[in-house]
């Protein structure tokens, strides 16, 4: 088991048995050990905060807790008894409720319907809406939100109100432990205050709350104790939420044990070259504001920020997959039509999207068809495809990228994550892209293949491609990029050369939402 558990004896030893005890939880996915010995204990009536960087294992842990994943090793004790949470129903029956980041409500049903979904109030199969409405109303009143009408359609409610509906649902199941996954991400300041009041009321009633957030000030305000995860391990547990310093927390979260091999940057960059991608004052209403940057051939620009900070949206807007509210994008001096992907592709821009499977690949089609998808015209004369040339070209790319297996007739679905990513990259290589936008290029790529992807990205840059990389993993951005833009809440708060930043500083900026040094914000470099 993990030896790095630095438990400073926790808070009050009043309750001898914790409500929930997880010991040595291990969860293995193909190629990734998502959880590698996690310990967590939660007491009744406390707010237990779970901290950790992306990929630290928080999501997997709460899925284990919700019964959605089965741990490979380790034990879970509930009220002192060893239990198996074989499926979500089993977890619910014990009184464990999870409120996911993406709310899982049925938009077309009413508030009361959603609260009692699957456990409808009924007699002889006939629903009893009046009773359900009354009960839902009571739950919402208890949550301090009597203004949410039980008969309102959920789809018409604000995100904050929807969250309350989710919480009412948790309460209606007599939950004794409620897991909240970044509940404040969709809320404004006032709504967050409301939420905290609800959380305090719940804990006063003896309900335990596991609270996941990236915002340290929230954790200090509402939390009791902190558990920090890193690389699937518990690195600290039972830290007092109010007394632990930001620096201490960040130190625990950083300094990852897995070291990736990043390829060397070019020592002297060609500062004289004309930028190939120029983004001026780009904004997308509600997502990000006034983003400006430019990238020269051979440069790798990294966008660092938390999930939801707007980094992916910036990339998608540059690409035309979203239509910019204001601002311009120029590629090699020519302005791109906003909201027109085909124009961007025509100008030599390529995107490897975040959701590779749903946005990037035709999973049921063979490799070669995925590679040639953006360059079909090249293999066609009058629309008639020359199959041999097409396959040959795809095979050459596959070999150049060391795709395994090289058999280009294989369905893409049968490939590993790393090789699927290579297929996407090969598509744009075949097109001779001048600008490559990479959104989370190593998501779902196993540890061994990552260095390979990094080397590929650097090799592309060395061939003169301008690369923009978005990643939730700060070390990845720092290791890969020449320059880094730090994005928080839709604002670019800093732009620096990557070698002048460390993980600690970036994490501090994105979690506090501001750059410590003024003047760096929102300015493209002028060099």
């Amino acid at each position, binding site marked *: 088991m993990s030896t790095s558990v630095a438990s400073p004896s926790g808070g009050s030893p009043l309750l001898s048995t914790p409500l929930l005890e997880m010991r040595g939880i291990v969860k293995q996915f193909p190629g990734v050990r998502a959880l590698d010995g996690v310990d967590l204990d939660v007491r009744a009536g406390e707010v237990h905060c779970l901290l950790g960087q992306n990929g630290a294992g928080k999501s997997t842990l709460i899925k284990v807790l919700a019964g959605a994943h089965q741990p490979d090793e380790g034990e879970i004790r509930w009220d002192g008894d060893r239990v198996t949470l074989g499926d*979500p*129903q089993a977890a619910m029956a014990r009184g464990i409720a999870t409120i996911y980041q993406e709310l*899982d409500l049925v938009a077309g049903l009413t508030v009361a319907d959603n609260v009692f979904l699957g456990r409808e109030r009924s007699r002889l199969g006939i629903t009893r809406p009046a009773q359900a409405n009354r009960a839902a109303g009571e739950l919402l009143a208890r949550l301090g939100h009597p203004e949410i009408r039980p008969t309102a359609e959920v789809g018409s409610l604000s995100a904050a109100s929807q969250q309350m509906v989710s919480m009412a*649902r948790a309460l209606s199941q007599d939950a004794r432990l409620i897991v909240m996954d970044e509940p404040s991400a969709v809320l404004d300041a006032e709504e967050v205050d409301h939420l905290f009041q609800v959380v305090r009321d719940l804990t006063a009633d003896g309900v335990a709350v596991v609270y996941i957030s990236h915002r340290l000030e929230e954790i200090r305000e509402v939390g009791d104790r902190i558990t920090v995860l890193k690389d699937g391990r518990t690195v600290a547990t039972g830290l007092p939420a109010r007394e632990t310093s930001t620096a201490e927390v960040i130190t625990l979260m950083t300094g990852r044990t897995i070291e990736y091999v990043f390829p060397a940057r070019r020592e002297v960059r060609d500062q004289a070259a004309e930028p190939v991608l120029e983004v001026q004052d780009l904004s997308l209403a509600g997502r990000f504001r006034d983003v400006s940057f430019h990238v020269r051939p051979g440069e790798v620009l990294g966008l660092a920020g938390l999930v939801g900070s707007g980094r992916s949206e910036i990339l998608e807007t540059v690409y035309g997959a979203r239509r910019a509210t204001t601002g311009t994008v120029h590629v090699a001096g020519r302005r791109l039509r906003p909201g027109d992907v085909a124009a961007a592709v025509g100008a030599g821009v390529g995107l490897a999207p975040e959701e590779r499977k749903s946005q990037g690949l*035709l999973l*049921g089609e063979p490799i070669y068809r995925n590679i040639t998808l953006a360059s079909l015209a090249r293999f066609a004369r009058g629309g008639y*495809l020359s199959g041999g040339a097409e396959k040959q070209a795809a095979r050459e790319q596959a070999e150049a990228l060391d795709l395994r*297996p090289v058999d280009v007739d294989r*369905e893409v679905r049968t490939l590993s994550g790393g090789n699927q990513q290579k297929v996407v990259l090969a598509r744009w290589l075949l097109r001779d892209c001048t600008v490559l936008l990479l959104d989370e290029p190593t998501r779902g790529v196993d540890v061994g293949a990552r260095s390979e992807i990094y080397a590929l990205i650097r090799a592309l840059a060395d061939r003169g491609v301008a690369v923009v990389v978005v990643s939730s993993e700060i070390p990845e951005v720092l290791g890969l990029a020449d320059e880094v833009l730090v994005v928080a809440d839709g604002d670019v708060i800093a732009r620096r050369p990557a070698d002048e930043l460390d993980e600690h500083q970036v994490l501090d900026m994105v979690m506090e939402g501001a750059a410590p040094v003024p003047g760096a914000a929102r300015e493209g470099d002028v060099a």
Partner: protein
Amino acid sequence: MSETTTAAPPSGSAADAGDGARAKGPGLLGGPLGRNLGLVVALLVLCIVGAITAPGRFVDVDNVLTILRLAAVVGVVSVGMTFVIIGGGIDLSVGALVALSSVWATTLATQAMAQDFHWIVMVFTAIAVGAGAGLINGIVIAYGRLVAFIATLAMLAAARGLAEIIANRRTQIVQDRGFIEFFGGDVLGIPTLVIIFALVAAAGWVLLNRTTFGRRTFAVGGNAEAARLAGIRVQRHTVWLYVLSGVTCGIAAVMLMARTTTGSSTHGTLLELDAIAAVVIGGTLLVGGRGTIVGTVLGVLIFTTLGNVFTLNNLSSSAQAVARGVIIVLAVLLQQRLAAGGARPRKKARGAATSGSPAGALPGGSATPGGPAGARPGDSGGRPPT
């Protein structure tokens, strides 16, 4: 780097164990034959049954030509339908478009023009009307973002209504002898209609398997978002798919006009159900992204041969409808089995996202890909009076 090589093969081969046969599926030559083997066998069995139950009459050149001639009209429409369905859509308006095209091409005005110039005017008119209506379908669906089912359902109602208005509910006789002689005749003993069907099917096969248009059709139907992000103009492509379907309706209208020597607003009634049924039992997935022309042609032949065998044995058309319904359900069940391997990873992802929900009632969502497939052809088996 060496680490990757050890990491990649296990996941690949594990998936391959179940998928090995299917991995070659979309290959151009090997796959379709293998996948259509079942259909070929079904067709052969039907022929054997026909030969045994109606010996003299079934195995007869004239009878075979009758079957082919009957198959021709549905077949041409089904080829267009195959494109639409592979592209992730559906076209319920085909029957109505055939009627509208046939009526428009046989109005007094059109026929007068044809008399002055050449009967080819009628052919052009029919195809132009079909293409125009298809264009409207496509624009409403692609740019108006209306669900294809609804948009083409509306076209189904509107086009037949328009046909009735134009024809004033009367059957319009085709006057031009040349037209009837050309399309009603034969070349070297093979009816012209059958030759047209063969040509359309061959052109469809080339278009689907050998052109950028076909490739993009698979991409748009298989994963519209990925296609869009790869720079394909998905909306424009969708419009072309419905135009293509409309064109095949126009061709089918010409063929019907030749066969019946009339243009009528009742032509092609319920043709959409026959076409969709043929496409579906031909192995094309109703969710899009996968399908073959060969399968569709076999599907059409199976249905037509079935009808012929039933007729030769003096069985009622009602019994035939029941048999059709059964065949459709069996074919789709089989298809789902095949598709299940393909859909599994997606299902798993969805399951992981929803299974934690307190509702817990969502795993049933995995049945949706088959849902519409099961429901729609079921309707066609029952033949509801529309």
